[in-house]
Every structure is written in C-alpha cells, then in structure tokens.
C-alpha cells in the first residue's frame, strides 16, 4: 500500500450528532482464485480486517472477504459524543498494518 488511505469526515460536529465517514484504500484485493497466464494460482492477498476507533473505543470494524473489489471503499456512520481522534486500521494478509488518524472537535 504505497498510497495514503483516503478519508472523508467532518472536522467538527455537535455532541450526539451522527456523522458519515468514508474511507478508501488502494489495494489489489487479489482473491487467490485467479490464475496467471501460465495457469498457476495467483496467491491471495487481501485486506482482511478494517477497524475504526474514536479515542481507543471501537466505532466500526469489518472482516473483509476475497469477493470485495480492489481498492475497498467503506462508508459508515458514527455517533460522536466527545472530541478526539479517529484511528483507522487496515490489516493485510501479509501482516502489513496501515493506520491513519483524523481528529474531530465536538461542541
């Protein structure tokens, strides 16, 4: 994952507001079912887990499966009661963990 994941979420929100969060990460999501031109199976390599926390508390998480298309895009909502930092984590089959953070001010 050479490129930084994309995030879209508001910088500010009112206490108790439900906000929308969009995430996109560049990844081939190789299923492990395809064959190369020589007939050999291309090994599986996918993002198998995604999670989002706010100040360490879980907001949303998902197990991703091979049928999910390349560059997985996830959109979800979160109810925010306090200012803090969202942390986003993507876990690759090969063990690579990509994280990124974004802060939000709740008034």
């Amino acid at each position: 994952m050479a490129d930084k994941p994309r995030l879209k979420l508001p910088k500010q929100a009112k206490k108790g507001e439900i906000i929308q969060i969009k995430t996109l990460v560049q990844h081939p999501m190789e299923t492990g079912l395809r064959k190369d031109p020589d007939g050999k199976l291309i090994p599986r390599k996918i993002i198998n887990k995604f999670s989002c926390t706010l100040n360490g508390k879980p907001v949303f998480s998902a197990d991703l499966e091979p049928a999910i298309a390349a560059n997985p895009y996830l959109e979800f909502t979160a109810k925010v009661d306090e200012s803090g930092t969202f942390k986003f984590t993507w876990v690759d089959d090969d063990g690579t963990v990509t994280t990124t953070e974004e802060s939000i001010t709740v008034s």
Partner: protein
Amino acid sequence: MPRASILVAFLTAAGAAQMLAPVVSAQAPSQSSEPAPLATGDAAARPWKRYPGWPTRDTASFNTLADQKLSPPAPSAPRKLEGPVTGDPAIGAELVADRTRGGSCLACHVMGQAGNADLPGNVGPDLSEIGNAGLKDEELFNFVYDARVYHAETIMPPWGTNGLFSDAEIGHIVAFLKTLTKPAMFPTEVDDPSKRPPPVETRDNLDDLVNPGLWTVEKAQQLWTTRGPVGFSCASCHDRAEDHFKTWAASMPKWEPRLDKVLGVEEFVYRHAQVATGLSWLMQSSENTAMSVYLRFLADGQEIHVDVTSPGAKQAYERGKALAAAKVGQLNFSCLDCHNPERGGLHWIRGQWLGEQRGQYDHFPTWRTSQQDIWDIRKRFQWCNVAVWANELPPDAKEYGDLELYLAVANAGLKLNVPGIRH
C-alpha cells in the same frame, strides 16, 4: 501599467542584458521565456517490450503506424471457385462467434441466433436474412475472404487474405450464412445493438474517493520537490506549480523543431526533467505518469487548443491525419474505421461502444477500472494497435506524436478533465 508591473518589466530587461555569460551557481535558473532545455535520445525503454498481461501474438508481418508496406495487398479480382462451396453450417455457426480471431463476425454483425444472439455488434449490416439475398456461393466466399474486391472502401477485415480464416473455414461460414433466413430474436433488449443504450460516464472523476487516478496527483506533488542528481527539483525553477501551469497542458502536444517531432506532456516531462534534474522518468514509468497527470490536472477546466500554425506543426498534423486513416494490423483497421461515426464510430463492437475521436482526449490520462491502472493517451494508442492485431510502437514514437496532435485538434475547445475515469 501599475507600478509593480513596470518594475518587473525593467528588472527582467536589465537582467537579460547582463546575464548573457553562463553563470556557475548553486541557484537554479528561474523559469524564463527561453525554450525549455530538453534531453535528446529515447524517451521510453528500448528495446520496447510489450506490457505484461497483454496479448503476446506477433503480428510483425502486418502494417503498423510506422510502416504501411507490410500487409499483403488487396487482390485485384474475386477468387474463382470451382463448383459450389462445401461446408458444415454447424461449424460455421461456431466460427462466426469465435472470439479468438478478433471477435469474428458477431463483433460487427447481427446474425440471427448465432452465438445465442448474445451482444452482437452493429458496425456492419444485420446479416440475419442474408440467406434470402440470392447471393452466389462465390460471392459470399469472396465477401468473407476479402470484401475489398467488391467495395474498395470496406472496413471489413480481409479474413482470407490476411490469414485469419482458411479456405475450408470460410466454406463453413458460407454454409452457415446460407441458413440465415429469419430476423434475429434477442434474449433481452440490451442484446439488440439498435436498442442498447450507449454507456454514460457519471462518476465524479475529480473526487478522490471515487477516482484512484487522483492519487497520482499527490505522488506528483511529492516528486515536485524531489531533488535529482543535478541538485535541483522541479520546484527549484517552478516554485509554485499551480501558478506556472494553469494553462500549459491545454496547449500540448506541441511541435518541437529542435527534435523534429511532436512532444506530448509525457515525453516533455521525461526530456525536460532529465536535463533539469537528472531524474530519469522514462515514459510509462509511474513517476512520468504521475507528473503528466498532475500537469494536466493543474490546467483542468482550460479549453484544449494546440498550435498548428507553424509549418512543422502543419505538416505533423497532416501526417497525423493520414495516420488516422492508415490501415494497420492483421485485422486491417484504421483509427477512423472504428472512431469516425460515418464508419464504426458510435456503434457497438460486440458489447463495447466505440466512441468518436472528439471526447477521446480531454480526460487522458484516465483511470481504467477494468485495468485498475491509469493509462495515458500513448498507452491507449498502443492498446488500440494491439487490439487490431498490429505491433505497437514505443510510446515516444514520432508517429504517435503526429497522431496525438491530430487527435488534440479533433478535441479543440473541450475542457481538460484529468484524470478521467472509464471502464
């Protein structure tokens, strides 16, 4: 003139007069009106090797955009056949839908229930009732073998002359054609090319959550300040890219008399960065593509207007126009055969829509969701060549430059919208 402008004009004039001698300095020269220094030599990998995963067939004995004297000539007269054609209509029915030979007949013709009437094209006439047309076996045979003996201007591939189908196979096809006597029944409405709606691209290509092609812009912004072996980065001379390149890309490609060829953005990026920074961003490298996307992205919204007034540019445009009409590859197609609306343009070739020339330039480089990759116009040219079974040229080939200039003129006035997103 406001005072500040006068001052700038004065300083520029004074500076020009005093700085004729070369100055050895750690300071990079500022962007000036002098022609940009450019590296000579090849701007892409040599020997050129086809991209991994592309078809590997070698079609070296057929015309390319660089050499149109390779393909076998059109026969001067129809072939005479001894007696009626013998063939098996069942084998013919399979051959007309055989996708291993350039999509075969169904790519362009509706043919009754052939191939289960699954997404036939409509570049050529509907042949569903050709069996009622009263054509002799010999005429049907020659239409398939090489239709140029009846219509010199036909866009139909010369299946026999160019060795795509053997005489025996054409016999089977003729036997099948004679069985076609009823209008096609399509399993669904979209299978009927006359009713299938043309694709419309509605995705917001400038939203980075929609178009992964935009990620190259971020990469280019990092490259902009990367110093090369010479000690300079792009930013050393062009400190704020967004100020310097608001319109530049919309005027490309451009005739370059020093190199005697047309330079597109990609080739310019290689040649200029090589001299100015020492970085070797060969065409089709990820750095080259990122920078080429970025430079066009900065000019997004500007109308495409290329200069074809100089004698060199005029000649290049005329060469490009001739190349657009040049028949290439084993399938013997020109650009215009597929993209001019009077021929195949705005028609279906099997399940794929053939666009016209206008609208095929303003969004390149474009993210291709089917390829999960961003393609510049030269890679698109290369793919078109390989798709008509012609050997592609290296991306910096002068023929592609001429063709790109011709295409840019066909797209004049359209606003740059880069990176695009397409299937």
